[in-house]
Each structure stands twice: as C-alpha cells, then as structure tokens.
C-alpha cells in the first residue's frame, strides 16, 4: 500500500518537473542563447525598431477599436435575453478558434480591393490592403473576439440586483452603467483587454496574408522574426526576447490588478439574483 502511494507521488512530481522544464526551457534559451550585450546591440537595428513601432502603433489602434466597439457589444450580449442570442455569441467566438490563415483569407475577400466591401471602400478613398489599416483590421479581427468573450463573462458576474437597485434609486441606464456596472466589471474587463493585447501583439497568420510584411509599414514584431530568422538569428533572438519580456509584463500587471480589485471590492453575494418568489 505504502509503496504504491509513494509510486503515485513520485510519478506526479516527475511528470510536473518534466512539463515545467519543457515549458520553461525555450523561454530561458531565448534569453540566454546570446550574451545580453549582443541583444542590446541589436535593439538599435532598424528592422527591430521599425517592427516595434509598427507593432505598438497598430496594437494601440486595434485595442482602442476593440474596447470602443467590443464593450457595448459584450454588455448587450450579457444583459439582454433575445432570440438568437446564443447564435450571436457563437459567431463572436468563432474567430477565436479559427486558424489565422482562414481569418486572413476572410479579411481579403471581405475588405480587400476585390472583396465584398472593397469597391465601397475604394469609392470612399479608403484602402485597406498592405498598409497599417490592414494590420489593425487583422489584429482586431483575431484579438477582438477574445476581449468580447471575456468581457461578457465579466458583465454577467455583476449581480443583477445591483443594477435593479441603481434603477430604483433614480439612476437611468447610462448612470447605472458607468457608476455600477463598469466599476464592478472593471477587473474582468481589464483582464479581457490584457488577453486581447497579448493575443494581438503576437498576431501573425492573418496579418501576413492580409497586410503583407513591409518593413516600417506592416511588418510587426512576429513578422520581423519570420523575415530575419534565417539571415540574422541575432535580430530574431532579440525580438523574441523582447516579446517574452513584454508579454510577461502584460500577464504580471493583469495578475496585480485583479489582486488589487479583489481585495478592494468583494461583492458579498453574487450568486443569488433578484429571485421572483
């Protein structure tokens, strides 16, 4: 009996050690394969700086778009019950699991020059292929659904009785949303935005198909890695290390804000709703 228990314990610890090592090794190798000084030297390489600027610009724009349009959509889907609601939610979730290459093709045939809206767009003087606007659309299409999905859950976690209480206290829908719903869903929305940001920064497949990989225009950090990795591994390593640090920072700040929120505003009871009895 005792030896069997020991065996099970050993197996669990050994499996955990192998799994952890498997996950950590590539990350550690990225940071240690070259001496830090050579990584620092490559930071000034124009391929790196151009890609960094393109990535930051397009991610910021896509993120603004996602939050501005995604938040109202998530709130409506979380708070309204209507026929076809679950179908709409499924449509929103679809791009999350879609292969990025499929997303890229979809974007081309929808918004590209010869696509569904291409004619309308060019009539308006808008051109969304192989430029920054195309990168922004690709990132928003792939990262937006992640934001909306997590934001729906954040809004659904707000006790509907608090919303009802706000209304009976004389607050209209707008005041209720900004004073009650938004603060209570805040930590969840922050998490949603952080996940979308991380996903958007790493976007590769849809971007390379829809926007191409033009240095200083559409070449984001992941595209730059792909572009240089067989000619200049140092640059690829530098960008990758940069990535590890950036995404780790996003995750860490996410953990810290949710920790700060939960210590500050724990709802006493979120389970019970305004029950009709």
């Amino acid at each position, binding site marked *: 009996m005792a030896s069997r228990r020991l065996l099970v314990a050993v197996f669990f610890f050994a499996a955990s050690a192998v799994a952890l090592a498997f996950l950590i090794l590539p990350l550690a190798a990225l940071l240690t394969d070259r001496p830090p000084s050579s990584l620092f030297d490559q930071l000034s390489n124009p391929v790196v700086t151009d890609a960094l600027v393109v990535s930051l610009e397009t991610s910021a724009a896509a993120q603004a778009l996602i939050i501005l349009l995604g938040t109202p959509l998530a709130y409506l889907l979380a708070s309204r019950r209507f026929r076809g609601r679950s179908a709409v939610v499924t449509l929103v979730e679809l791009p999350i699991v879609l292969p990025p290459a499929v997303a890229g093709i979809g974007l081309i045939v929808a918004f590209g020059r010869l696509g569904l809206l291409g004619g309308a767009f060019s009539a308006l003087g808008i051109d969304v292929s192989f430029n920054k606007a195309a990168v922004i659309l690709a990132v928003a299409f792939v990262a937006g659904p992640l934001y909306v999905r997590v934001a729906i859950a954040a809004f659904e976690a707000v006790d509907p*009785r608090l919303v009802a*209480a706000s209304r009976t206290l004389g607050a209209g829908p707008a005041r209720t949303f900004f004073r009650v719903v938004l603060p209570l869903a805040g930590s969840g929305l922050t998490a949603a935005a952080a996940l979308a940001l991380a996903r958007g920064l790493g976007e590769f497949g849809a971007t390379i198909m829809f926007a191409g990989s033009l240095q200083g225009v559409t070449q984001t950090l992941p595209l730059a890695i792909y572009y240089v990795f067989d000619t200049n591994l140092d640059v690829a390593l530098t960008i990758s290390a940069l990535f590890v640090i950036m995404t780790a920072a996003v995750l860490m700040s996410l953990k810290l804000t949710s920790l700060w929120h939960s210590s500050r505003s724990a709802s006493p009871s979120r389970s019970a709703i*305004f029950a009709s009895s």
Partner: protein
Amino acid sequence: MALLSVGFALPLRHFRLELELELDGVVALVGPSGAGKTTVLSVIAGLARPESGRVALDDEVWLDTDRRIDLPPDRRRVGLVFQEYALFPHMSVRQNVAYGGQRRADELLARFGIAALADARPDQLSGGERQRVALARALARDPGVLLLDEPLSSLDGHTKASVRSELARLLPEIGLPTLIVTHDYEDAVSIAARAGVLVDGRLRQLGSPDELVTRPADAFVASFTGANLLRGRAHTRAGALAEVVLDSGEPLQSTDQVQGDVDIAIYPWDVILSHEDASTPPPANSIRVEITAMTRVGGRVRVAAGPLNAELATEAAAALALVPGAIVRASFAPASVRLIRRD
C-alpha cells in the same frame, strides 16, 4: 398620507398572479415562498412588466397598460429595500446612501445611527447595519412609496428580533405607504398594522392581525396564522351553539353558525389541557389526545397532542406534570372553535 393603488395580472410559471391592493400605512404581504410576493414589488417598482394593470400613487400614474403608460424604475418614486439589501460593494456607506440623493444623505446617516460607519464598505457591516444603510439609501431619493423585500430573512435570530422592533418603530414614523414582503407571519404582524396573505398568486385575505385570527377567510389563512386545523361536519341549531362532529367522531360545540362540511380552526393558545379523571365526567367540548412531544420556547411550552398543537405557560405545564406519552383531555371554549365552510 398618499395612497398607492395597485391592480394587475401577470402569468408566472405555475399560476397567474392577480392582485388588487390599496395601500396607505404599513402593510405586510405574507405567504409561502413562490407565492409571487417579490414579483408584486417588482411590478410596483417597474422591474417587471405585468400583462395588464395599473399602478398609481394618488393621481401620479406609473403604469397603465390600457393607456400604454409604463414609467421606467428610475422615474417611479419608489424606495425599494432589496432582499439581502443589494448594497453597492464598491462604494462606502455614505456613497451608497448619496447614490439615491445627495441632499438628505447626511441627515439620514445621522437619523439611522450609521454616521460613524459613513466611510465603511458594505462587507465590513453587520446584518443589522446593512439593513439600516439599505433603508437610508432607499429613503434618500425621497420616495413616495417604500417597499421592503424580506427585510429580516438574511439576519441571524438575535439580530432579527432587534431589527424587527426597529422596523416596527421606524416605518410608521417615516409616514409613507409601505409594503413589506415576508414569508414569516410573526414578522409580518409584528411590523405591519395590516397583513395580506398571498397564496399561489391570489390575495386570500387582507386585514389586521386580529381579523386574520378571529375570522380567517379560509383554512390556509388559519393554518398560516398558526391555527390547528381539524375537519368535520357542522349542524346549526336554532337558538343554540352549532354542533360539529369531527371526522374522528367526537362532537364539539362552536359559536360560529355554519352548516355542512367545515374546517375547524383552533389556535394553540386556546387549547386547555387537563388530566382524565375517572371519577368525574370529562369536561365539555373536549377531545382525548396523547402527548407526543414538548418544546420549551421562552416562558411557554409548545405541546404536540394528538392532532393539535397547544401552547401553555411553563408553570401550567409543570403543575400538570405533562410528559410525552401521557393521555390527556384537550378542551376549548365554544368561541375558540372557529368554523370555516369547505367548498
């Protein structure tokens, strides 16, 4: 005082909720859970929409389905105290109260003795304190009507008693038409001047606690207000007490003049217990029962005796030396034997 008039119909899952109610003063709506009590409050507050109906405070119409009037909750002057209070967890006590109205916030905090807690968060408060914050918040918007949904159900026994007497004192002082929803009859009558019994979406009876006990409209109201229920058949006799033959065959007399199949309501405090004595005839108007259980509640003893619950002073029970298993006589004054015609 203003008058709130409510009349509506709303189909719920298991029954149709239909209600007509004129509200001035403090009224409790009492009934088993699932009777539609909370829905009544939701309809008045505008949180639920009835199929048809009208809600008006004096000549201020909040809902009139015939005239297509349906004001949103924020435009009805309603102060609603939610079950478990629904305080905003991300706001301080003062912010919670001021959310309803800045002007009266400090006055209300002082009035309800929660000024010292103004900067506390709801999760730092006791149940009784939360209840006061919720009441202050509801009043801060200067409502014309006060609604309380199960204000005592989330409190522990000790706090419950003090909050109950606090509400009984405060609510008449506030001077608004007030509707309290509760599943506990004792809570209802200790807070409100009148109580309505709501069962399966219908208001069975609305009256003072005295009226509900002395003239229960039906067997359910009688048992809900705490009566023992027996069944039998009654015969009126000119110039005499009505005679009832219980289903068990024993005869009883009643001052109520009713004929036919009846429910017989007898309140526990009207039951007189005595020992059987072979040398004297049994007391009039009595039945033979076996004591099955005894529970002490405060200065009284609750005795389960045959089909009856009796309640008597601890000393009286001690003097009779009652023990479970004993066979005793339970007798009642004819005026305590209340007959309700069964249809």
